[in-house]
């Protein structure tokens, strides 16, 4: 079809050159002028066909036509004057050169136009992508652009926030009228494996060729094009596809970043809400407790020491204090276990923490003997001081509650000789811990069945919160029975280096 058209064009041009040449001859112009006419015809033929083959064909044909119609003897291919050979050769060479240059210029013009169109369509795509408000919009715009540019169906499979392929993907079938459909994706693991093990810029699957979309923090998704369409793409088309993919990846990446910003903002406000909630709960419980504890204390002071009513008032006070510590522990545990509250770590002297805890415990158990053993050197570690104080208080209270009155309790501090850690040991001289209780002792509300119910009522939470706090500090805690006599000991360690060097 194309070739027939080119031959026709060539013949028409040569015919026109012959006709005008005939008029030139009548008008008495020299042969060289007519040769120029043929040169012009070759140039037009080459220009219109943009094919070097046509140009060469036209050049040779022009020489023969010129020879046949205009070189004496006329209407033969014979030549009388040898000068004509020079003219023929010159005509052939010149016309071939001219047609070469013409076709090249024409081709380049065509290429430039195509590139311009491609640039324009990429620009349009980028524009429309930046207007897209949601990820679905981005995908829809992207697929429409690919279908328009490559005239084939195409799909886009996105990875979710955790980098996992989603279960379905959007596919836009070929043809202007058809709209996008959701298709089931293959096994996510297989998809990820293929993305991670690419040898080229795309993966060639059974049904589709897949081009991954890379964002700043890893792959964001895939663009997939049916195998037959993808394998038939020329250089031009695949370059255009790559440019489009770059633009799409950029848009998706920008969207993902914006989404993450919104998410972290939401997290901050949720966190603030929860902190406020916890604070107001603790405030609302503390206020009436102040009244109960204070009033029962005064009431007790006005009653005869040792009397029945004095005992009762004392029990109100103890129960209210117990309720208070339970509430504080529950709130503390909630805060820490949710991972919502960040530790406010500072370098603290452990002896001060221990001293503070011992002072606090002595207020409630003025008759309890507590030994404190410190090393000569100052031991410091990064920690949330108030929380570690709570650990020591809970361990001391636990020790006091589970040993009889008058049994000494001790707390000692040492620097771990092997690692870079501080070691705090709380030891009692009570009956120790039963072997079957040891593995469960840090579980919240774990109760050992052999203890009386009143005795173990605060057994559970105190130790659970100790474990939570120490673990949050990157330390360890364990319970065991003493080897050098009766009693149990609780040992916790704290790292003496900061995990992340944020402060210095």
């Amino acid at each position, binding site marked *: 079809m194309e070739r027939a058209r080119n031959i026709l064009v060539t013949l028409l041009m040569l015919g026109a050159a012959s006709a005008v040449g005939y008029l030139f001859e009548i008008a008495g112009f020299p042969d060289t002028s007519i040769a120029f006419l043929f040169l012009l015809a070759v140039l037009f033929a080459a220009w219109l066909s943009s094919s070097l083959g046509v140009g060469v064909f036209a050049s040779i044909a022009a020489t023969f036509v010129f020879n046949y119609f205009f070189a004496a003897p006329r209407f033969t291919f014979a030549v009388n004057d040898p000068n004509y050979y020079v003219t023929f050769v010159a005509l052939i060479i010149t016309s071939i050169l001219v047609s070469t240059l013409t076709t090249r210029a024409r081709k380049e013009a065509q290429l430039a136009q195509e590139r311009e169109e491609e640039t324009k369509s990429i620009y349009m795509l980028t524009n429309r992508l930046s207007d897209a408000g949601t990820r679905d919009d981005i995908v829809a715009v992207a697929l429409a652009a690919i279908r328009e540019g490559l005239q084939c169906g195409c799909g886009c499979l996105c990875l979710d926030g955790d980098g996992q392929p989603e279960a379905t993907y959007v596919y836009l079938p070929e043809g202007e009228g058809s709209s996008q459909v959701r298709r089931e994706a293959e096994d996510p693991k297989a998809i990820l494996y293929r993305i991670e093990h690419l040898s080229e810029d795309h993966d060639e699957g059974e049904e589709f060729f897949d081009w991954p979309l890379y964002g700043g923090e890893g792959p964001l998704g895939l663009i997939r094009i049916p195998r037959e369409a993808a394998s038939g793409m020329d250089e031009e088309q695949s370059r255009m596809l790559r440019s489009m993919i770059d633009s799409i990846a950029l848009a998706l990446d920008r969207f993902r970043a914006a989404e993450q910003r919104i998410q972290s903002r939401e997290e901050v406000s949720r966190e603030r809400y929860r902190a406020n909630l916890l604070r107001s709960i603790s405030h609302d419980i503390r206020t009436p*407790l102040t009244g109960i*504890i204070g*009033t029962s204390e005064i009431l007790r002071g006005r009653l005869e020491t040792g009397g029945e009513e004095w005992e009762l008032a004392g029990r109100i006070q103890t129960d209210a204090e117990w309720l208070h510590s339970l509430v504080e522990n529950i709130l503390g545990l909630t805060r820490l276990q949710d991972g919502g509250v960040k530790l406010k770590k500072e*370098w603290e002297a452990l002896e001060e923490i221990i001293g*503070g805890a011992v002072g606090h415990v002595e207020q409630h158990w003025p008759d309890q003997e507590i030994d404190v053993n410190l090393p000569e050197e100052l031991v*410091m570690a990064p920690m949330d001081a108030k929380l570690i104080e709570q650990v020591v208080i809970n361990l001391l209270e636990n020790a006091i509650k589970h040993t009889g009155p008058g049994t000494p309790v001790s707390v000692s501090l040492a620097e771990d000789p092997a690692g870079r850690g501080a070691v705090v040991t709380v030891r009692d001289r009570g009956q120790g811990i039963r072997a079957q209780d040891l593995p469960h002792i840090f579980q919240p509300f774990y109760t050992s069945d052999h203890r009386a119910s009143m005795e173990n009522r605060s057994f559970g939470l105190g130790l659970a919160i100790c474990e939570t706090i120490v673990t949050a500090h990157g330390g360890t805690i364990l319970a065991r029975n003493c080897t050098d006599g009766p009693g149990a000991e609780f040992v916790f360690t704290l790292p003496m280096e900061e995990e992340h060097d944020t402060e210095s």
Partner: protein
Amino acid sequence: MTQRVEKILVVEDDEQIRGFICYALSNEQLTYLTAETGHQALEKQRTESPDIMILDLGLPDLDGMEVIRQVRERSQLPIIVVSARDREADKVAALDLGADDYLTKPFSASELMARIRVARRHLNLQPAAEESSLLTVRGLSLDTAKRLVYLNGEELHMTPMEYQLLSYLFHNIGKVLTTGAIIEELWGAGYGRDTQALRALMAGLRRKIEKNPGKPEYIVTEIGVGYRLKDE
């Protein structure tokens, strides 16, 4: 100088707690007056000139912090904060604004009374403290004229920094001094929040004056807030 009757202003919006505090005060034969809002408190402070103020931070109209700030503009009366706010940052903020002491709810009547005793002693002591050059608490004495420290009559060797720290605590005996205030006093403003140097200095001082630095009898740590030289 005649010993006059001290008046204590109780600022608390919760009726129950106000009742309990007033009851505890009258139990000790102390005179008191009450205020339920921040504006009332400021008003009564101006008109009745109380000697001590017990202040709840969670007031319905004004934040307690604001009350402290306004009172401090015109008066140095001791302010004892009682609050359900238990974050150390809140305590430090109140103390740095000029409050003298801080009790977290729930507290017992005896704790409150102990704090009031400290405040009362300050009221009566202050003029005397200026004159005397020898300050003593339970066998520990500070000779401000000679810059010497004695424990049960025996002279202790102190570094200049240790002396300065102890002296600052002595001049604020019974009161909580925040870590920030001590650092500013010892090293000057703008030293920053390097608490490590203070912790080390304190450890050294305690090893000289305390029998067992793990169970301090003189200087107690208010964890996350600061230090207090116990006066009883």
